[in-house]
């Protein structure tokens, strides 16, 4: 186990209290940023740290910030707290148990791009967490850490929460912006990217909760320290959400690349119930391709590059484990039902494709399909790929295509009887 950078509340009781958080160095980084550092110096430090977006795409955070056009104001920072990927439950723990580290990160990001307003877009189901964050924000205003002309400078910052209302697609950053503007959560055509025309058409940075929670320690301890954790290309720690057929599911914060899937599942997760064998894993939730649990796969270190080499991205590191009792045709039925439900309806290939994949997969699982329906399912998935505005369409095909390719026998066993 590596040291805890994000889930520090697990070793520091009551870290969610402002006084305790401050006793443990809280808001020193934000104070240093606002009173001592130029915004560009923070940007450079974050770039040097090599921090990559923790929402799933893994895009370098500093680079994302650097795309903002010079001298265009106002600007906005939005925290993506829409955490909705099946298998993902890390941002919820951060916001619930270590809320100030997240808020401080958001505040540092806002200062770095000179935004005077920041929004936290939470999925509607996080109602209780939103109320908690509202209380924490009010405490920060009272303590002079949020508001007008902070710490004797000219910099002002206000933070607001905004509750979604149940739509996976709003985790996609342009759909999130549409939703925040009071419209349907449907993705925008890009370019322009949010960095140039985001919220209300203004330059906007959108970062995931876990990404933002990394910023206070990076500013406080420096990028060189940060780079001592993790690998050259994947620095830092990552929270791995472990679920499915394991004895000890939960969040595990680990240095990137320091552990293999086998260590996560067996050493940390306590292995599979009943001592059964792992059949496959999905490393990035329902959006993930399937990885057959070969020795080679199980012994792969969990960092962005190594997992990618197995044929599917690490994404949000939501590791769903499935044992040999799982039939892949059932799994696919589950994932396509989800994407069919969550497709926003904007792009025809996704709207219609997820509908048909759902129906074909149900037919296969019910034993009512013919052998050629397996290829039909694969064919529909193939026709979605590369034809949609956002990644949801693509995500919906991952389990389908990799499932049929690697576990075709599971599908064949259901048809033609």
């Amino acid at each position, binding site marked *: 186990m590596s040291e805890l950078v994000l889930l520090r509340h697990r070793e520091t009781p009551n870290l969610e209290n402002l006084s305790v958080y401050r006793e443990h160095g809280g808001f020193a980084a934000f104070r240093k940023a606002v009173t001592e550092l130029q915004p560009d110096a923070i940007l450079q430090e974050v770039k040097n740290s090599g921090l990559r977006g923790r929402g799933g795409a893994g895009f370098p955070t500093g680079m994302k910030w650097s795309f903002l056009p010079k001298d265009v104001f106002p600007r906005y920072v939005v925290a993506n707290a829409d955490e909705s990927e*099946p298998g993902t439950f890390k941002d919820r723990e951060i916001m619930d148990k270590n809320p100030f580290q997240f808020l401080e990160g958001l505040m540092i990001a806002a200062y770095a791009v000179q935004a005077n307003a920041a929004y936290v877009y939470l999925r509607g189901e996080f109602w209780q967490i939103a109320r908690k964050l509202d209380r924490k924000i009010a405490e920060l205003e009272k303590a002079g850490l949020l508001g007008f002309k902070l710490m004797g400078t000219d910099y002002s910052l206000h933070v607001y929460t905004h509750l979604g209302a149940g739509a996976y697609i709003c985790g996609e950053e342009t759909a999130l912006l549409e939703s925040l503007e009071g419209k349907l959560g449907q993705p925008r055509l890009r370019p322009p990217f949010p960095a140039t025309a985001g919220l209300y058409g203004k330059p906007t940075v959108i970062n995931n909760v876990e990404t933002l929670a990394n910023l206070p320690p990076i500013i406080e301890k420096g990028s060189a320290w940060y780079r001592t954790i993790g690998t050259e290309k994947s620095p830092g720690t990552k929270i791995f*959400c472990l679920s499915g057929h394991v004895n000890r599911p939960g969040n595990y914060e680990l240095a990137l690349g320091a552990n293999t899937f086998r260590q996560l599942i067996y050493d940390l997760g306590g292995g599979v119930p009943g001592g059964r064998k792992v059949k496959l894993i999905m490393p990035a939730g329902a959006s993930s391709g399937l990885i057959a649990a070969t020795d080679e796969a199980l012994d792969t270190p969990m960092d962005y590059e190594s997992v990618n080499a197995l044929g599917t991205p690490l994404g949000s590191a939501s590791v769903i484990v499935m044992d040999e009792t799982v039939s892949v045709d059932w799994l696919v039925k589950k994932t396509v039902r989800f994407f069919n439900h969550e497709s926003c309806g904007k792009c025809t290939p996704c709207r219609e494709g997820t509908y048909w994949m759902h129906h074909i997969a149900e037919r296969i699982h019910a034993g009512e399909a013919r052998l050629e329906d397996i290829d039909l399912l694969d064919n529909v998935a193939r026709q979605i790929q590369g034809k949609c505005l956002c990644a949801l369409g693509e995500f919906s095909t991952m389990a389908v295509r990799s499932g049929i390719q690697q576990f075709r026998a599971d599908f064949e066993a259901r048809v033609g009887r």
Partner: protein
Amino acid sequence: MNALQQKYSTEITQVLGKYPPDQKRSAVMPLLYIAQRETGYITKQGLEEIAEILEITPTEVGTIVGFYTLYHDRPGGKYRVQVCTDLACALRGADDFLARICANLGVKVGETTADGLVTIEEVTCLAGCDRAPMFQVQTVEEISYHENETVESALDYIEGLRRAEGTREVSR
């Protein structure tokens, strides 16, 4: 000033204050939550009142109700028990969990118990995968999470709601 505005004037002013003055439309989602408090779903009157406050059309407000799952356009139980049956929860028995709750209550998914108290709904991932089977309960006031549940604990919870509300056990 319409009825919604009159009843919740302080709260609505506070909500509008979160967004730039020329971007009032951003408040449509928080205002829908406020309007939903009245009857548990969004009425035609609610659509019209929100539209008037935000200077958009009732149709535009209506599309938002239709798009997002936590807004309802018809009456349901006072407590909406929303069970996640997505992949990770299903691997921990969520499908069977939901089926047995429904059987015990004598309702199908989407239906409301005869006493009008509880609607059972099947929903997508709630970010509680490690503590499945789990459900959330949506009321007009709040949403609460219930995790690491069993069929028995879930039914006990529902029974507790009935006792608190003074309604009779109808079928079990």
